[in-house]
C-alpha cells in the first residue's frame, strides 16, 4: 500500500529565524535585492496596518489583513516578470501592489467602488477572487492560452490552505498537468481557513505532496523566509517558462491578524500560538537581521521609509476618495458589451430615478 508516511518532504529554508543561513547561499543575494525585498515587505506591513485602522474608522469596508504573510507574497511576486499574470484572492494585496497595482486601485476596491476590479491596462492582474479556489482554473486557462500563443509569460495563482479542499483546485491542477501549461500554484498555508485548522482541512501532512496526485512537481518552502520563497519561486517560474510544466508551491506561513475585520480569532486559536509566530517567526524580523549584519539598513532609513509609505497611503486614499462616487447607472455598462433592450430600459429607469433624487 502507498502511504504518506513513506514520503520524505523537506522544507526549503535559506534564512533561519535569527537571520542566519549558509553563507554561500546568502551571498548569492545582492544587497539591492535584499533591500528591495525588505522595503516591499515593510511597505506592505505599513499599508496593511493603515488599512486595518481605516476599516476600524469606517473609512473602508470589510478588510482581510495579510500581516505575517509578507514574505510569501513579496518573495514570490518579485520573482516574476512584469508581464506575468497574477490571479489573487482577497488576501493578496501585498502581491498585487508589488506587481504594480496602484494603491488607489486597492482603495477603490476596499471602498466598494465600481472601479475596484478594473486593473489598469497593461497590467496582468485578474480581479480579486472571492469564491475560494475558482481562480485556480482561470490561471490554468490563461497559462494554457499563453502556451498556445507561444508567449513566455507565466501565470501565478494565489490561494490559501482552505482552497485546496475545493473541487476547482483539483480540476485546475489536473488540467494544468495534463496540458503542461506554465502556471505556478502558490499556496499560502497560513494554517487556518477562517477558524478551521489545517489538521481538520486535510489529512495529508503537507499540501505540497498533493502535487503527486497530478504528476506535477511540488515543493514546500518556509513562507516566512523571503529568500527561500524568492529562490523557490524563481526556479519554479523558470521551469514553467521553459515548458517543463506547472509547479505547486506550498509556503508555510501564518496570518498574525484576524481572518477579516469581521472575525474574532480568539474564538479558535490561542494567544500563545499567535505570540509565538509574532515573536520568533516574523518574516520582516529575520531579513532585517540579515540587513543589519550586512550594514545596509539603519533605524533612520527604516523610519524615513515608513514615513514615506505612510504619506503614499494618505495620498492614495485622498486620490481615491476624490474620484466621483459611482452611480448605479454605471454598472449597467459592464453586464454585456451591449445591453439588451430590456436591460437598457432598466438602466434608463435608474437614470430617471437618479435625476429625481438629485432634484434635477
Amino acid at each position, binding site marked *: 500500500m502507498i502511504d504518506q508516511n513513506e514520503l520524505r518532504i523537506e522544507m526549503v529554508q535559506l534564512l533561519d529565524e535569527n537571520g542566519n543561513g549558509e553563507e554561500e547561499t546568502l551571498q548569492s543575494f545582492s544587497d539591492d535585492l535584499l533591500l528591495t525585498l525588505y522595503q516591499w515587505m515593510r511597505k506592505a506591513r505599513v499599508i496593511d496596518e493603515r488599512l486595518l485602522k481605516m476599516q476600524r474608522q469606517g473609512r473602508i469596508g470589510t478588510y482581510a489583513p495579510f500581516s505575517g504573510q509578507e514574505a510569501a507574497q513579496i518573495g514570490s511576486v518579485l520573482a516574476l516578470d512584469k508581464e506575468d499574470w497574477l490571479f489573487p484572492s482577497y488576501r493578496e494585496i501585498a502581491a498585487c501592489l508589488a506587481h504594480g497595482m496602484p494603491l488607489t486601485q486597492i482603495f477603490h476596491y476596499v471602498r466598494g467602488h465600481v472601479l475596484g476590479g478594473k486593473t489598469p491596462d497593461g497590467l496582468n492582474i485578474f480581479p480579486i477572487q472571492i*469564491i475560494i479556489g475558482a481562480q485556480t482554473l482561470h490561471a490554468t486557462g490563461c497559462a494554457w492560452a499563453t502556451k498556445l500563443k507561444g508567449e513566455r509569460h507565466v501565470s501565478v495563482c494565489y490561494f490559501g490552505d482552505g*482552497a485546496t479542499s475545493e473541487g476547482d483546485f483539483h480540476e485546475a491542477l489536473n488540467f494544468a498537468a495534463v496540458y503542461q501549461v506554465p502556471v505556478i500554484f502558490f499556496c499560502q498555508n497560513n494554517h487556518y481557513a477562517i477558524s478551521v485548522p489545517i489538521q481538520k482541512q486535510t489529512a495529508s501532512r503537507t499540501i505540497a505532496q498533493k502535487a503527486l496526485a497530478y504528476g506535477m512537481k511540488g515543493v514546500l518552502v518556509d513562507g516566512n523566509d523571503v529568500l527561500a520563497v524568492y529562490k523557490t519561486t524563481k526556479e519554479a517560474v523558470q521551469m514553467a517558462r521553459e515548458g517543463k510544466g506547472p509547479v505547486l508551491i506550498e509556503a508555510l506561513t501564518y496570518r498574525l491578524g484576524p481572518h477579516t475585520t469581521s472575525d474574532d480569532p480568539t474564538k479558535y486559536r490561542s494567544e500563545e500560538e499567535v505570540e509565538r509566530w509574532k515573536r520568533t517567526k516574523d518574516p520582516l524580523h529575520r531579513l532585517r537581521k540579515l540587513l543589519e549584519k550586512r550594514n545596509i539598513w539603519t533605524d533612520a532609513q527604516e523610519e524615513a521609509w515608513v514615513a514615506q509609505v505612510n504619506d503614499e497611503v494618505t495620498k492614495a486614499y485622498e486620490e481615491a476618495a476624490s474620484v466621483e462616487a459611482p452611480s448605479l447607472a454605471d454598472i449597467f455598462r459592464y453586464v454585456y458589451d451591449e445591453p439588451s433592450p430590456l436591460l437598457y430600459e432598466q438602466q434608463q429607469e435608474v437614470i430617471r430615478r437618479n435625476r429625481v433624487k438629485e432634484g434635477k
Partner: protein
Amino acid sequence: MAEMTMIQAIHDAMRQEMERDERVIVLGEDVGKNGGVFRATDGLFEQFGEARVFDTPLAESGIIGTSIGLAANGFRPIAEIQFLGFVYQAMDQLAAQAARLRFRSAGRFTCPLVVRSPYGGGVRTPELHSDALEGLFAHSPGLKIVMPSNAYDAKGLFISAIRDEDPVLFLEPMKLYRAFRMEVPEEPYEIPLGKARVVKEGEDVTIISWGASVPLAAKIAEEMKGKVDIEVIDLRSLQPLDWDTIYSSVSKTGRVMIVHEAVKTNGFGAEIAALIGERALFSLSAPIVRITGYDTPYPVPSVEDDWLPNAARMIEGVQMLMRY
C-alpha cells in the same frame, strides 16, 4: 416567551431539535469552534460535542454531498452554506442529487436534510455574499424552499424543516438577523411549510413578498395607510407555495405588486405573476408590478442600496397601480 432576534430564534430551533432528536447533526464551514460566521451555531459544539457538530473542509459540494449520504443512512443533517452565493459550487449535489434521491430510488431512499444559508443585501458584503438565488431552486423539483422574515416564523419554520422528510433549503435574510427583536415562545413549535402569512390586511393593493423584503413591504403599507389600503403577504415558503392565500388576496384587491431582492428576470416573482396570469387574470384591474433587483450581478456596496427594492421604488409602484 422571550425577546429574540432572528438569529437567536434559529439558534434556539437548532439547539432544541438537537436535544430532542439525536439524529440531528450540524455541519459546515466554521460552524463548530467558531460558532458560525454569524454565530448561528454558537455553543452547539460545546453542548453537543464533536460527534454532532462538524467543522468541515472548505468544499460546498462536499458538504451537501456527504450530507446526502448521512441523511440516507439515518441522520438529519443541518448543513450550512456560509453565504448563499457559494451554493453554485453545490448545485449538482443539491438540485440533481439531494432533490432527486427519493425520485431516483422510487422512494427507497430519502434525504431529510436542511441546508441553511444567509442571503440578501444591504449589509456591504464583498461580492457574491448577498445574492438571492431562491429562483434557481424553485426550478429544481424535489427541493423545498423556506424564507422566513422574522424571528417567530424563523423558529417555527426551522423546526418544521428539520422534521420534514425531504431536503429543505432554509434561506436566512442576513440583514434581518439582528434587526428586530420579537416575542418567541421558548418551547419548540412548528409552523407548517406552505402556509403564507397575511402580515396586514388591505383592500386596494396586494404586496407579495418573502424573506428580507417583507419588513420593507410592511413599512410601506404602514406609511401609505390612509392613502392606499395595502395587503401584505409573506409567503414564508416558495415550495410548497400557498396559492390559496395569494388567490384570495388578488381576488379582493385586483392590484398586485411582487417584491424580491433577486434579479428580476426569471426570479420567483415571475412564477407568481405567471400563476396569477393563469388562474386569476380576470381579477386583475392593473398590470402586475415586480419590484426586484435589476438584471445585473449584485453590485458593489457603494451602489447596492439603489439596486435593491427600496421605499422609493415601491411607493412609485403602488402609485402606478392605483392609477388603474
